[in-house]
């Protein structure tokens, strides 16, 4: 549907309250094709599907043929996978013993690709025998796959477990020609750091078997593809980032839910979704959380009589997901409400419209979600509905920021002692660790391992002698391993990772699953089980956390405006103190929680204000710092690929270690994720963006659109908007203030 058609249809709709504040059309992208000589069977297979190769696919294939590594970051649905399937087919056809390894962040993504690869393989007669190999692979198939499969699809978590048995994979490894890291944008932060270590161990083993494969990193668009690829694989890659694929015209509509204060965001999203599907547009609606996805889906039942709109979440069982995906591809399912699980990777075909309910945390994700709308050359529609959140609403005031996105930086953290030691121990358990393989910077980690009796030195090298298997003692559990099961009446409803469990599945939490309401009764993090009962309640819940932070060491400091900014290591004690029950959009009651505090070390960045002007009185100082802290956190995702929830903060009028009023931000996860480092580097820009955001907000005393944080453990008290503006102004150098 074209933009003008949509807007007039809206005008005619009695529920419309003028929420559209801005709309822009992105012109269609004319395809750029390119030619390259292909094997006859491959060319025939492509011709049968009416596929002509785009310029970026050809560039990638040529670079791989030329012996280079490639990092390809063209948008979703640009045919990235063909860029590495073609060389795989060609090389494995030429050499009957050659093999390839494809890594996916999640099993579901690997399974999705398997069918496609199988079909392509059959048509090209390459005898690839593509197989997934992971925890779900039946025992009786495993030996065969290890012996005969030529393309193995797996995930980093599984690969980590299999590396010590590399001799069983000798055939695959010795003949490996290509390693593909697909959906690699998942490998950021701590997860990415661990995958990078895993890959260096894999490379070491490949060297042992005499293999020298090429690497392909395939990811969503980011600002630093070459750096990212190098950080991940340790090797240089040719960047293929210019998109040659065809794109129909796309319109982006910015929708302000506040224009109709009587209707909740859920309601407005549901109405819009039903409206679009009624107009015959197959639509996907992205929600920020499982709970929201369920709510929106249920709300559409009111407007639409049919079962035509369903919800989709990664926590659903595999069979249910397959059915939903197929129904989308075939057009049977007209509308779906999903979390970011359907952002990329899984093939659901191109849809007619995408609604983004809430900013998904990064522009990378936002554009991946938007990218789901687009069917050939037909006009696609994207509607953005912000939450009452500073970052969300920021784009209503500055839509160009959204539209002119050029990519965010993906960072991998500096290696910490704990992670390094874990990977060294695993490496030693895979092959004796020879002195020349140990870098000077690993001296401390090696000493720690020897002292704790995990390593013994022998003439062959350092060997692992712990009583517990290294790969179990040091798991890659930070990987998207969903390890806490939500159980009701003995049945597993869904699974989630431990961090989410603390945040969303604490005792007393209200959860929605398949339209049913559940209340969590117990949470046992050691066992990985949360139990819940099915109960009809009319409120929802939001967890609250507070943190106490101790500065362990400052690594470097600088001046930003009139504030002293430093970064270093901090020790955090995080307590989930309670949760609030919410009716509609209003908080009703507060409940304490007795979860054990989570103590961990991480990276932090802090700003100390040594000489405060007299206008900021002592009484309002804490409110000013606190407000500034919230504003800074909410702007962080603009600068580095993270969620505002990944960064936490504390502020105090007198910090014992800095001796001054201080705002402290830190990476909200064990050992840090590389975020604080970027925030330190970009502090001036961060402060300027926060300052601009708060000072331009039309509210009087601070609102959810500028200062209020839904996660604040101290109930957003105290907060001072004028004070926050002054503090932020102090921290942003004059030159940065206007231009952000």
């Amino acid at each position, binding site marked *: 549907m074209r933009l003008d058609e949509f807007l007039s249809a809206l005008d005619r709709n009695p529920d419309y309250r003028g929420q559209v504040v801005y709309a822009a059309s992105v012109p269609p992208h004319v395809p750029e094709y390119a030619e390259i000589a292909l094997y006859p069977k491959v060319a025939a297979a492509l011709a049968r599907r009416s596929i002509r190769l785009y310029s970026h696919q050809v560039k990638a294939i040529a670079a791989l043929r030329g012996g280079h590594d490639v990092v390809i970051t063209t948008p979703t649905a640009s045919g990235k996978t063909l860029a590495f399937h073609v060389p795989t087919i060609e090389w494995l056809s030429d050499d009957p013993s050659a093999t390839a390894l494809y890594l996916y962040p999640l099993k579901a993504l690997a399974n999705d690709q398997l069918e496609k690869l199988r079909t392509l393989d059959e048509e090209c007669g390459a005898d690839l025998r593509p197989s997934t190999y992971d925890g779900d692979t039946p025992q009786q198939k495993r030996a065969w796959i290890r012996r005969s499969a030529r393309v193995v699809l797996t995930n980093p978590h599984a690969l980590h477990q299999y590396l*010590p*048995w*590399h*001799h069983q994979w*000798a055939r695959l490894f010795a003949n490996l020609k290509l390693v593909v890291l697909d959906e690699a944008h998942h490998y950021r932060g701590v997860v990415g750091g661990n995958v990078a270590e895993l890959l260096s161990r894999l490379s070491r083993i490949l060297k*042992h078997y005499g293999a020298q494969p090429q690497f392909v990193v395939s990811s969503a668009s980011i600002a630093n593809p070459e750096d990212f690829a190098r950080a991940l694989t340790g090797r240089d890659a040719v960047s293929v980032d210019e998109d040659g694929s065809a794109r129909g015209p796309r319109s982006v509509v910015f929708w302000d839910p506040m224009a109709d204060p009587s209707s909740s965001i859920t309601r407005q999203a549901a109405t819009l979704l039903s409206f679009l599907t009624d107009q015959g547009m197959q639509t996907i609606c992205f929600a920020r959380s499982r709970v929201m996805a369920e709510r929106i889906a249920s709300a559409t039942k009111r407007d639409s009589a049919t079962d035509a709109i369903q919800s989709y979440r990664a926590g659903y069982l595999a069979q249910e997901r397959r059915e939903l995906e197929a129904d989308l591809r075939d057009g049977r399912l007209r509308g779906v409400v999903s979390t970011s699980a359907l952002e990329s990777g899984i093939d659901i075909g191109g849809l007619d419209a995408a609604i983004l309910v809430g900013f998904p945390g990064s522009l990378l994700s936002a554009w991946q979600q938007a990218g789901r709308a687009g069917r050939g050359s037909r006009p696609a529609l994207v509607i953005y509905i912000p939450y009452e959140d500073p970052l969300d609403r920021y784009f209503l005031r500055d839509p160009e920021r959204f539209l002119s996105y050029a990519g965010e930086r993906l960072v991998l953290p500096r290696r910490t002692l704990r992670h390094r030691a874990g990977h060294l121990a695993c490496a030693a*358990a*895979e*092959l*004796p660790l020879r002195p020349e393989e140990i870098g000077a910077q690993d001296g401390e980690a090696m000493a720690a391992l020897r002292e704790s*009796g995990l390593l*013994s*030195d*022998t*003439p*062959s090298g350092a*060997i*692992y*002698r*712990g*009583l*517990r*298997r*290294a*790969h179990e003692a040091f798991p890659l559990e930070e990987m998207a391993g969903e390890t806490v099961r939500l159980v009701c009446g003995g049945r597993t409803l869904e699974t989630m990772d431990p961090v989410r469990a603390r945040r969303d599945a604490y005792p007393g939490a209200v959860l929605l699953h398949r339209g049913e309401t559940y209340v969590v009764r117990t949470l046992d993090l050691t066992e990985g089980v949360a139990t819940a009962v099915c109960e009809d309640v009319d409120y929802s819940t939001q967890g609250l956390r507070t943190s106490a932070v101790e500065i362990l060491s400052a690594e470097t400091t600088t001046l930003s405006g009139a504030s002293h900014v430093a970064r270093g290591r901090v020790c955090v004690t995080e307590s989930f103190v309670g949760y609030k029950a919410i009716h509609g959009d209003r908080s009703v009651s507060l409940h304490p929680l007795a979860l054990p505090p989570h103590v961990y070390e991480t990276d932090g960045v802090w700003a100390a204000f040594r000489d405060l002007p007299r206008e900021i009185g002592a009484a309002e100082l804490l409110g000013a710092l606190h407000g500034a802290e919230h504003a800074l956190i909410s702007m962080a995702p603009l600068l580095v690929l993270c969620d505002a929830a990944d960064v936490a903060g504390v502020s105090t009028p007198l910090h014992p270690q800095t001796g001054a009023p201080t705002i402290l931000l830190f990476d909200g996860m064990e050992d840090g994720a590389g975020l604080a480092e970027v925030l330190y580097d970009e502090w001036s820009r961060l402060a300027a963006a926060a300052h601009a955001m708060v000072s331009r907000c039309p509210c009087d005393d601070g609102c959810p659109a500028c200062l209020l944080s839904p996660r604040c453990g101290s109930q957003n008290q105290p907060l001072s908007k004028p004070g926050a503006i002054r503090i932020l102004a102090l921290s942003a150098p004059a030159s940065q203030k206007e231009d952000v």
Partner: protein
Amino acid sequence: MLPGVQEPGFPDTLTFESETPFDLRFPAVELLQANVARMLHLLYGIGTCRSEQLRRQGYETLADLTTHPQWGEGARALLETWGSAWDAEAVFRTLRTWLPASDPLLLAALGLVPRERILFFDLETLGLSNAPIFLIATARLTDRALLVRQDLATSLAGERSLLTRFGRELEKTTALVSYNGKAFDWTLLRERSAYYSQSLPSVEIHADLLYHVRRRFVGLLPDAHLGTIEENVLGVRRANDLPSSLVPSFYSMYLETGSPAPLRPILDHNRQDIESLAVLLRALLGEATDAA
């Protein structure tokens, strides 16, 4: 200190040898050959019905079958692979195709192997997988005795030597005897050999007594642990035995403190294990000849 010998060429190890009188008789080779020769169903295409049929027609043995119009060629080919002297490995390969691993005949057929080419073995390791091996016990039969050798690594650097030494033994071996060796010990040996990039000679015949014990005693005993078998079947009682679950931590203790005190109980436990292995084989063979 321990009364072991430091063998030259195998650094960081100590070797302990002992010889105990031991009498083990296999069924006579002629008897074995006669029994196997009657197994017409070893030929692909002949099952119980057909072999009954053929027997009624006068074909009693595989040799008889060589004159059969339909099955003659197959029978001749099979006997050829076995050779006129009945090569043990070839015969076992055939038997294994048609018999379950727990079939008593597979134990009796060890009688086809020259006595000195049978090797009993048992490992002690620091863990169940991806863990260093620090003690390898092997035993061989002489006419009247059991020769036991234990190679102990005095530091983890010795593991390599243990593997090399064991490899040498394998070259002189046609048949292995172990307890749960197929699932555990042999897999670990392959793993650790790969870890040091050392080759491990393969051995065609491997009699894992656990299979036979399960078949023979299932339902009669609470479990198939070697200790349970010793007590209930072999009449062996260990005094002050170190439980196997403690072996790894005892060795770790030795590594950490340097004191050899924890090693004595480990060596005793391990030697008892391998002696029981030989006694168990004898007991099972007794059962097998009875059954046959």
